[in-house]
């Protein structure tokens, strides 16, 4: 379905009956990426899954957004659909960082929070950041002679090779830069909502260490590490992930 939020044509999926659960996808993903999880949860809950601006079928934001803009966008979406505060919010990856920030800003005030491989711990890997910075600077200098499109393709390839999502959606490069600068550990420390942290043992993008960090920051939180799963833990181990979430939300 579609709705206009913040002057952006916004696509969302809404299914099921019962308490409202909001799903927030990660960077480069869309509501479709969480469709399996949504389907499982609709048995008991009314589940809203939205394509965040710039992803899926929702229009690009007109300026470079940070997590605060996305948080307000989700708040406005709920208001537009005339929903009260959701019972639960589930955020994957950058959607997890967004959920933390949105709760901190009180844009979302859920009774339960589930963070799936949530990012937002931005300072724990200085070596990787340094490598990306060096490649970026060197790459910029060395490829100046290339045609613009070739240069852009090479940049995308190099950033992808380093594990950076910056050019997954090239049009959102500035938004990505603003978003990844936002460390939400301070916001996490202020969360007083029952929180379930699910991290994947084989996640190369957001390590379990980030989950442990959040676990130490969010009072009373519960950390589950799922084996034989990568960053998309809900796709790699759907049964296990759904069972953990259902048990937590019950």
């Amino acid at each position, binding site marked *: *379905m*579609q*709705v*206009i939020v913040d002057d952006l*044509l916004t696509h969302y999926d809404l299914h099921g009956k019962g308490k409202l659960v909001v799903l927030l996808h990660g960077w480069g993903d869309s509501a479709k990426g969480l469709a399996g999880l949504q389907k499982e949860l609709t048995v008991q809950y009314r589940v809203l899954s939205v394509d965040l601006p710039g992803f899926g079928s929702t229009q690009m934001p007109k300026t470079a957004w940070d997590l605060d803009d996305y948080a307000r966008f989700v708040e406005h979406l709920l208001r*537009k*659909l*005339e929903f009260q505060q959701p019972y639960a919010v589930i955020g994957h990856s950058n959607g997890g960082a967004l959920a933390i920030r949105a709760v901190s800003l009180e844009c979302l005030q859920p009774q339960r929070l589930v963070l799936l491989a949530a990012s937002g711990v931005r300072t724990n890997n200085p070596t990787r950041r340094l490598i990306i910075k060096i490649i970026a600077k060197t790459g910029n200098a060395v490829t100046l002679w290339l045609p613009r*499109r070739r240069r852009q393709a090479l940049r995308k390839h190099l950033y992808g090779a380093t594990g950076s999502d910056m050019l997954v959606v090239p049009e959102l490069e500035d938004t990505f830069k603003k978003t990844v600068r936002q460390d939400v550990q301070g916001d996490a420390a202020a969360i007083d909502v029952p929180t379930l942290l699910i991290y994947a043992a084989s996640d190369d993008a957001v390590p379990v260490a980030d989950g442990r960090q959040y676990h130490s920051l969010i009072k009373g939180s519960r950390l589950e590490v799922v084996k034989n799963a990568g960053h998309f833990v809900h796709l790699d181990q759907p049964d296990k992930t759904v069972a953990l979430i259902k048990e937590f939300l019950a």
Partner: protein
Amino acid sequence: MVYMETVAVIFGGRSAEHDVSIVTALASIIKPLELTKKYRVEAVYIAKDGAWYWDDKLKDIKLFTSGGIQDYLHRAQPASVQFDGGMMLVKASGIAGRKQTRKVDLVFPAMHGTYGEDGALMGLLDMTGIPYVGCGVSASAVCMNKVLAKKVALGCGLPVSDYMSFHKSFIERDASTLLKTILKRLTLPLFVKPAHLGSSIGITRATSETELRNALEVAAHYDDEVIVEEEVPNLIEVTLPIMGNDQPKPALLEQPMTKPEDFFDFDTKYLQGGKKGKGTAKGAQGYSQIPADLPKDLYKQAEELGLNVYRVMGCSGIARVDMLIDSKAKKAYFNEVNPLPGGLYAHNWNKAGVSNVELVERLISFAKERHAQRQSLATSFSTNYLQQF
């Protein structure tokens, strides 16, 4: 050597249905036309920015599906079109500044939506004076405006479901009053649609006042005119592809296999290959029952209505008429006309015994027939009007 007529297939365009147009052109028109071995087929692609390109490379669907089209557009020189004494495609040949040209004998438009299917391209082609496939300017313009089409049908005594239409400015100015006005006259659930777009883009089924308000905003985001239609109870949706000029012939009545609350949006129609989440066939081919499973008299009633709509709209060549049937009241209502059905609805014609090759050949023959009829009309006459000044 036998002279081969040059047919230019024009597709793409500045429309929300740009991508659907590419599939229509490459799969349902260019391929069968080439199989006839009777025509020299030229692919003319209009990019989203409105620039025209003419190149055999544009006949390859992989160029579009792989995203390679962006690189192509970056490198390629746009083509131009000359209209002196017909239509001539012109582009740089790449050799010493020389131009490559090709005189076009007939145009096969494969454009959906704005600046193509709505009569804009047909107007341009009429000015060139060459024959082209499908509906003319006025039929295309009327059919592509859902409000105008309903008014024409009503004026000709054909049944349509209750509807209201509004300009975008009304929605922006005072949505609350507008909602009250709508709900005073029409009963939920309501379908809200942009007046000019096809392929189910921007359509919402609203079941509450909030959904109606949001649906109006969405439709107004796409179009400056919005139509709100009452849902027909006990609904069976059917669609009828029709071909011909003065003596139109129907294909088979087709029934989409969806529930009313699961109506055909763009995703269902083109991306999921049928019933939501369960489709296996790709594209628009796998979602419906052909022929529609209807009692004989109801089938006949809908077929008659479809043919009448085709005639009163002034359609020629090809079109597809969508109808809504109240299965309890056994009554068919006109819904809308699509003057260039996606993929020409070849899957339906195939079931009606018309192959893809036969389909494009017949359409070309209808185009020539209509062109000859128009050529025979007097378009000027002598007067002494100027001498009186």
